[in-house]
């Protein structure tokens, strides 16, 4: 640019001056694009949260919409002296069910050996397939095969535990584990079934223990209409006075800031899902994802823009040299205006739930969570530090926060679903605003939680 030192022409100078005076204001889109490019983590966070909440919803939907698939997770079939092909001919549904069977069998020759088939009771465990309406065919099949089972009973000495095999290539009748337990009376009347049951016992007990293990996990979905209140804290006069005695006081507000503003609570809601893991008979740990929408009304008056002024004054002779704002000269519109502050948050509830009372269908639960939360929007109004006006300042907001939540709810079990209802309180531990902002706002939500939960099997 050395050449430019010779550049002193008047026209260029004036052109540059004029051009430099020109300013344009970019649209909001530009900053949001720039911001998302230099902070890809926030994008990853949104994607991660979407996947997490999507996963919970899919899991819940799967359990709600097609419970039959889950009920059939632990199907047991018994096959005694029934060749695979003939069984498949008898009931095509069963052969279809075989497609989903697990095949840990280590010797396929067993199935094709007539001698061994005659002397071996083979148990088959299915992990898919049949709805509860297959109970009857199962029972029928057991009864019709009683002769065979009896013959097996006569040859008990020939049946050794290793012969109880788990096979995929089975077409034998399915038997639901829960029904086995529920229908013990029926079985006791039928010695053949009892015999079969005793042979199947190791498999059944293994299946039951799996089920119990699985029942430690459950999911929970809920929605909570809430009443959103908030508490404001301003600069404490006492704090200022104590920290700098005998010195000029910068800001003095003697009244509680909550009394100076006119904010009314409004309805919002929380929507979420949890996965619960039972660590003991009555206590479960839970983790999930929650979306919350909070809002409150602001009543205020429009006024013309003004330059705030400050002056030294005395207050009742106690404090000399304090500063106070002067609002003289402001014209205020007499018509009251109403604005709404809305907050959208995503949070990750992590907590404990305890069964307080009840053993059967009706139970009382108490839960508590800590929720790291992320504020999705920063376009709410902020009260100015002199409590005189509202402004929009995205920089004033704290994105990450921590919420403490507690709930007490009654649950009632209908079928496989447990319905829940009860009060819930959420308190935002840190201020909505950053520490650098002199005001503090803590949101508190009171709500009635409606939820459902179900064991994952």
């Amino acid at each position: 640019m050395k050449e430019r030192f010779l550049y002193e022409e008047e026209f260029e100078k004036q052109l540059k001056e004029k051009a430099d005076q020109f300013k344009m204001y970019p649209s909001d889109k530009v900053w949001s694009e720039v911001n998302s490019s230099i902070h890809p983590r926030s994008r990853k966070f949104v994607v991660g949260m979407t996947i997490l909440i999507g996963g919970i919803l899919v899991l819940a939907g799967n359990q709600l919409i097609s419970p039959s698939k889950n009920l059939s997770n632990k199907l047991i079939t018994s096959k005694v002296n029934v060749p695979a092909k003939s069984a498949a001919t008898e009931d095509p549904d069963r052969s279809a069910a075989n497609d989903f069977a697990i095949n840990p069998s280590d010797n396929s020759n067993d199935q094709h050996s007539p001698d061994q088939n005659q002397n071996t009771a083979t148990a088959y465990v299915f992990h898919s397939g049949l709805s509860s309406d297959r109970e009857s065919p199962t029972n029928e099949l057991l009864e019709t095969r009683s002769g065979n089972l009896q013959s097996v009973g006569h040859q008990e000495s020939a049946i050794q535990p290793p012969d109880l095999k788990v096979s995929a290539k089975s077409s034998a009748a399915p038997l639901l584990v829960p029904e086995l337990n529920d229908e013990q009376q029926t079985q006791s009347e039928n010695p053949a079934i009892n015999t079969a049951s005793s042979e199947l016992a190791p498999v059944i007990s293994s299946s039951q223990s799996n089920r119990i293990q699985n029942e430690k996990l459950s999911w929970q979905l809920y929605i909570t209409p809430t009443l959103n209140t908030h508490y404001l804290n301003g600069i404490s006069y006492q704090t200022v006075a104590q920290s700098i005695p005998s010195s000029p006081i910068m800001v003095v507000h003697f009244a509680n800031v909550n009394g100076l503003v006119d904010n009314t609570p409004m309805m919002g809601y929380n929507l979420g899902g949890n996965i619960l893991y039972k660590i003991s008979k009555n206590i479960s740990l839970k983790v999930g994802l929650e979306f919350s929408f909070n809002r409150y009304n602001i009543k205020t008056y429009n006024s013309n823009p003004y330059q705030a002024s400050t002056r030294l004054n005395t207050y009742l002779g106690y404090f000399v040299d304090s500063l106070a704002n002067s609002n003289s000269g402001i014209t205020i519109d007499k018509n009251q205006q109403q604005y709404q502050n809305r907050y959208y948050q995503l949070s990750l509830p992590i907590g404990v739930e305890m069964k307080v009372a009840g053993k059967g269908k009706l139970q009382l639960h108490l839960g508590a969570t800590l929720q790291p939360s992320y504020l999705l929007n920063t376009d709410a109004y902020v009260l100015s530090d002199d409590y005189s006006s509202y402004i929009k300042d995205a920089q004033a907001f704290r994105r990450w926060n921590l919420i403490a939540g507690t709930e007490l709810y009654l649950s009632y079990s209908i079928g496989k679903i447990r319905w829940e209802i009860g009060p819930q309180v959420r308190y935002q531990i840190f201020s909505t605003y950053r520490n650098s902002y002199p005001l503090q706002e803590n949101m508190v939500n009171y709500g009635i939680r409606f939820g459902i939960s179900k064991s994952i099997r």
Partner: protein
Amino acid sequence: MTEEAILQGCLKNHAAAQKELYNRYSPKMLAVCYRFAHNREDAEDMLQEGFIKVFLQMHTFQGKGAFEGWIRRIIVHTCINHLKKNKRFNESVDIIQASAIQIREENIPSIVQAKQIVDCIRILPVGYRTVLNLYAIEGYSHKEISGMLDIEESTSRSQYTRARQMLEEILIKRNLIPVTKEKTDRLTAIH
């Protein structure tokens, strides 16, 4: 927030400092982009690309010279790259050798608004406009311009001469600068 605090905040990747920096300089920088760009949309694209570079290359700022100047250089280079990428510049660069047209210095009245001047500059063909922007407003030498635009230094000079002449005529047509007798005679001779 002071400029030093903004710089330190940006180096630590603090979103608040980055937003402050953007708020402070984006209006000026968008005006720079707008002078180079075909339309406002293009200008915003250039600005976006430029500010991403600014934030990503913040650590390379040595503190020598004004921070605004450093940002401005990045933005200008982004604009040039954008024009090259879209082939808008190459298509309209005329290879015209410097002519011996003598242009007397004109004074731009102070009453003329900045926007009027910028609008006049934007009427120029993109090749002229780019050279004029770089030389007269951004302060680059013809040698530097030739390197930036991949053209001969003499081409840059001729482009600038033609650009300035054309701008002068536009300003006269729009009554933004007074018409002198010498100028009237010359314009009459041309037309």
